[in-house]
Each structure stands twice: as C-alpha cells, then as structure tokens.
C-alpha cells in the first residue's frame, strides 16, 4: 500500500511534538485512546488573550497514520479561534493525508483529541469566571504567604 507524501512527511518530520503545562489556565489538554489498536494520543492547545490558539503540542503512541494525523491537527489549529478549531473534521484530516480506508480511525482519534482539548480549555475558563470571588481570595492568600 502506498502512503501519500504528505503522510510520510508528517510521520518522518512530525510538527509540534511535546507537552505544554497541563495545569496552566490557558492550556487545554485532550487525552484520547483507541483501545482496539492500543493507540494513545495527547493533544494540547495554548489559547492567547486574543482568543487565538497560539501554540499546540502533541504526543502520540500509535501507528504512523495516528502520528501524522495529530501532527497535522496541531499545525492546522495554530492561529485559529477555538470555535474554528472545533470544526475540524476527521474527514478533512483523512483527505489531506490521503489515509487508506483501514487507517481512517486514526483521523477520528485526532478529531476527538482536539475536541477534548477544547472542552478541557472551556471547562477551565468557565471555572475561572464562575467563582471570581473565591479566586480573588486564593490569590490574596497566595500573596500573603
């Protein structure tokens, strides 16, 4: 089976491998897995004050197609708003990389990973704004210490 040049390029020169601080307020982390094939994928986004994704990192243990799919997604989401990033579909990933049918599930994993990262970021943002008073108290305590 012949793999596309784009796929091989992302596999051999993966973009944005690494980790961001998962505890940081402006970082959303998505951790997903495909138990049938034993793949595990972590995808993280860092959202700037302007609402744009300024950085994205991934770590994937799985086949070449899973690595290429997550590498591509980190490249795509940079500079996008989270709403825009959320519209990325696995079919777009599969088409861009020309994934063979048996590897379509790798693109599903990458779509689920970016969705999970966005959900995590939103949950953190909601928590931050839900209880400003408590946060304020904590911050003051931290300063006092």
């Amino acid at each position: 089976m012949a793999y596309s040049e784009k796929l091989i390029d992302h596999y051999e020169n993966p973009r944005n491998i690494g980790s961001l601080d998962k505890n940081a307020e402006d970082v959303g982390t998505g951790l997903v897995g495909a138990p049938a094939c034993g793949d595990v994928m972590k995808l993280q986004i860092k959202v700037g004050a302007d609402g744009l994704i300024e950085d994205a990192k991934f770590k994937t243990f799985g086949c070449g197609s899973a690595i290429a799919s997550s590498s591509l997604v980190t490249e795509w989401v940079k500079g996008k708003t989270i709403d825009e990033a959320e519209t990325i579909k696995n079919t777009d990933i599969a088409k861009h990389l020309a994934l063979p049918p048996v590897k379509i599930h790798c693109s599903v994993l990458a779509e689920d990973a970016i969705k999970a990262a966005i959900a995590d970021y939103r949950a953190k943002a909601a928590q931050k704004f839900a209880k400003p008073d408590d946060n304020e108290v904590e911050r003051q305590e931290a300063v006092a210490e």
Partner: protein
Amino acid sequence: MDHFARLGVPAALDLEPAVLDKAYFALQRRWHPDRFVGKPAEERARASTEAAALNDAYRTLKDPLARAVYLAGLKGVELPGDGKTIDDPELLMEAMESREALHDATTIEAIDSLADQARQQSQQALTALGSLFLRDDKPAIRKALLRLRYLDKFAEEAQGRRANLVKKVGIANG
C-alpha cells in the same frame, strides 16, 4: 452455541490450559476431515464447519485476555471496536506514561525491567477480574479489560523495541 459450550468446558476466567487442550484435541479428532472422506457432501460440509468453529473457539479461549473479553461479552460488557475512542483520563494517563518510559528506555535491561513490571500488572489485573465477575460489576470489568488491552499493547511494543535494540547492538559489535 458459545465457545465454552462448544468445547464442553466451564465458562470461567481461570480455565486450566490442560483441560482446554484436552477438550479441543478430542473434538478436533472427531471432526477431522480425514474421517469424512467418502462420506456424503452434507456430512463433509458439517465436519468442516464444526472444525472451523472449534478452531475459532480454541483460539479465543486459549489466550487469557481474549477469553476474559469474550466472557465479558457474553455478560453484556462490550468493548469499543475499531475506530471507537475512549477518554478515561486515569487509564490513558497510565498508558501514556508507560509508553513514554518505554520510549526513553535505551538499554535492554531497562526495557526488560519495564516489560516485567507490565507483566506483573497484567497478572494482577487478570486475577482481580475474577472478583469483578463475581460481583458482576460491569463498568469495572470494562475498565479492567481496557487497561489489560493497553498492557498487552505495551508488551508487544516492548518486544519490538527490544528486538530492534538487540539488532542494533549486534551490528555495533559485529
């Protein structure tokens, strides 16, 4: 007919390999194509169907994890199939960390030590499954089986990485 019934063995997690082997080989002899030479086509077809089903049953029940997954399926615990994803953070964090450790392991000793650890974890998880089945705790059974899948994958990866390293060392020394 389920695989256990087909082989006439108890539907249990801790099936003795010898018991399973004995049941399989006896039935395999009974349905062996050689015994149906010259018999009517219907009988020959029946024998070959039976033989195939026996092989399938034996293959599934012989492997402890495949057996556990199958038994869980009979109890209505379905595992995600191809293309289905999970997001259990605890489970995936463990899988991610162990794969990172394996990725960072650069000596055969380090790989063996990680593989040993994973083997022990698998053993313990398989043993613990027994009581989960007794309690019929389906969510816990599902989670334990998913964890075992990842441990199994880890073992496979460790083996591959070890083989690569052995090859590399061999080239360096030779």
